[in-house]
């Protein structure tokens, strides 16, 4: 297993270099420059501004000096937020997204697994249709509808929660529901599918024939295998969740990381674009590695090679 992990880490390095290289050149090729503004400053000032961030140097030289800093883990200063570095911005916002993502993931797993497993036990019955149609609605309702809807009911009408902000523990509830609800719906559908497949396998029949109770069959024999599709899904999903959601952060005014994925591109804040993309890439690679390890553990047919 250690060899497996080491190999995967070694494989990840070229992937990261390719991602960083592509992003580096792509943002610079995009039309529009970091210091374009509606009110143009003088050409001299602009030139000096670009020189300060090294944008006057030949592209290749910029690239190598960036990669040099990257190896040291330094993403450089943000172009937009003059007194902060990209590292600081990520360090300040990632914990918020991580916290929100963790709540959302808990909600997604609890609701999703429960609904999916229940639905799979009696397929094509009311206990299947009700949770599955709810899941369908959950998938179809995008967060930008779900969020304002929850705010309208629980924030504005009932007054139970603040409509936005990230100050009190109660401020976590609505965003976590909005974000978690969406993933719960997916999880439910995947869990149902996985369970249905497993329940038709021979070893389940064997377990039943041996007189195992239905509860034991489901929890002890079926669940582990039935969750395989869910596990493959939640790996990248966790990476997506903990790196924040632009939409949810905007709706609830949450100081998370998700907003930077969008705003940094819009601002042509090259350093911030690079920082967020590379950070996210690392997150995905790590999560995928964990998922692969868990999958082997869950499915004895797989091996580390």
């Amino acid at each position, binding site marked *: 297993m250690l060899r497996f992990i080491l190999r995967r880490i070694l494989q990840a390095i070229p992937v990261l270099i390719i991602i960083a290289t592509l992003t580096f050149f792509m943002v610079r090729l995009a039309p*529009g420059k970091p210091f374009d503004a509606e009110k143009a400053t003088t050409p001299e000032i602009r030139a000096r501004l670009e020189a300060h961030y090294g944008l006057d140097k030949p592209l290749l030289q910029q690239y190598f000096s960036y990669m040099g800093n990257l190896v040291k883990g330094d993403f450089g200063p943000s172009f937009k*937020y*003059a007194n902060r570095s990209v590292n600081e911005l990520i360090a300040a916002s990632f914990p918020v997204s991580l916290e929100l993502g963790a709540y959302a993931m808990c909600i997604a797993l609890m609701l999703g697994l429960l609904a999916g497993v229940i639905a799979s036990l009696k397929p094509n019955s009311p206990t299947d249709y009700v949770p599955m149609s709810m899941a369908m609605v959950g998938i179809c309702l995008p967060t930008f509808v779900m969020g304002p809807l929850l705010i309208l009911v629980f*924030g504005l009408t009932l*007054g*139970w929660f603040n*409509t936005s902000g990230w100050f009190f523990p109660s401020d976590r509830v609505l965003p976590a529901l909005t974000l978690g609800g969406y993933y719960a719906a997916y999880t439910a559908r995947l869990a149902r599918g996985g369970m249905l497949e497993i329940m038709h396998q021979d070893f389940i029949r064997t377990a039943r024939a041996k007189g195992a109770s239905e509860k034991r069959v489901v929890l002890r024999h079926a669940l582990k295998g039935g969750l395989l599709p869910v596990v493959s899904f939640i790996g990248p999903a966790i990476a997506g969740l903990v790196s924040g959601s632009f939409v949810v952060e905007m709706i609830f005014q949450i100081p998370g990381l998700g907003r930077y994925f969008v705003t940094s591109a819009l601002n042509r804040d090259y350093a911030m674009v690079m920082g967020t993309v590379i950070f996210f890439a690392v997150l995905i690679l790590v999560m995928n590695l964990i998922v692969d390890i868990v999958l082997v553990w869950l499915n004895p047919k797989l091996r580390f090679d």
Partner: protein
Amino acid sequence: MKQLLLIAIAMLAITGCGKRETRVEQGNRDQILHLGNGTEPQDLDPHIVTGVPEHHLITALLEGLVGLDPKDLRPVPGGAERWETSADGTVYTFYLRKNAKWSNGDPVTAHDFLNSFKRILTPSLASEYAYMLYVAKNAEAYNTGKLADFSEVGFKVLDDHTLQVQLNNPTPYFLSLLNHYSWYPVHLPTVEKHGPVHERGNRWTRPENFVGNGPFILDKWRENQIIIVKKSPTYWNADIVRLKEIHFYPIDSDDTEERAFRSGQLHVTQTVPLPKIDVYKREKPDLLRIDTYLGCYYYRVNVTKPPLDNKEVRRALAMAIDRENIVKHITKAGQIPAHHFTPPGTAGYTAEARIPMDVDAAKKLLAEAGYPDGKGLPTIEILYNTSEGHKVIAEAIQQMWKKNLNIDVQLVNQEWKVYLDSQKQLNYQICRAGWIGDYPDPNSFLDMWLTGGGNNQTGWSNSEYDQLIREASRAADPQKRMEIFQKAEAILLDEAPVIPIYFYTRNFLIQPSVKGWHPNILDHHPYQHVHLEAAKK
């Protein structure tokens, strides 16, 4: 099950009756103002930033030489208690208050101002607003690196509390200019302590480091969440400051901001979502404020490419727009139809020249240009940055030009930075634009159209116009100066490299408890004059 239902009903009843005290109600009691502030500030360094949310923060934390009257924006004593002007209007002498202090207790001196001016003009800082100081003698030369000796720049310290500024020309709007944050002082010893003084990336603006001379001091700064400023005990005029704290919330989404306002979390918002304007007008007109604003929404015309290199065609297009209709049915928030470019009443100036709405004359002009009834005229493209608001206006104009002139128009939208780039490269035919004056003077609207000006971006050039604008900058007699502007704007409108559409308004929501938030065209609200007063129950 029944029990659960009962509990749920009970909970509803409890929350329904005993409503929690809202942030606004709490604020009214404790003099804490909660403001929506648009977006996260770039920084709080007045020599670095360029935006409006930054302005709202910096005016709380720092004070320039002069202040503004909250009602009519007249320059009033600020850091300087009085000033004198030389007879020819080119030398200003400021007498600083002896009791003005920085928040660390140091006195505010003329050296602080001088060194601050030096800092913003130093080339290596690459301050984007450095050109605001170009009215001072040799400031431009120093900033562009042509002059190395700062003592030749028109700033002089006469003694610790007297500062002299030598201008290139008599500049009637100079005192209003001083209210722009680029002219604000910073505490140099503090700046020095936290990084290179004349380079970007200094950390002195962190709450634990910040030293200011304004009515408030920086207390907390949590990115994308909140900035809290507290009343400064060292401010020279602290007696009149009634607010204890101001909380600035960077809320990007206008819908989120409106919901926060509706649920009692904000006293004042930055804006109102367009669809909500009608609702507030109908249901809660006392919470909605629509103030005129020093800005113009207009279309730029690229005059370097046919057929729009033809003045008649441009005039015809400009005359075939029903601006009243746009304002009444699309923008709907009290905007004024713009038949000229400088907003009416800017420093007492209203353009006499007009671009009328006259379809017959427009048709005639188009025929004269060789396109009778729009025949032979290629399809014209209107470029706008992606936004629903710009789109509906462009669609309306598309229809008007089709109906009135039989011209085919195509709409093109681009993402913000791409659109800015297209504009700069003159890679468009007609594009939407907006201009907000930096200071209340026609010059802020007219000198941008000088040949080759950075904000011209139309390719338009007119030597007579250039000469008039230069003449105006030297004119000492205010009345003569306004006459020159009249002539210049008449040329601009006649040549029509710009098609003005409407003058902006600032639309926002405000709780009745906020007092001293006076309407003015710059949307400046000096916080020392603001306080909260809850209605008596």
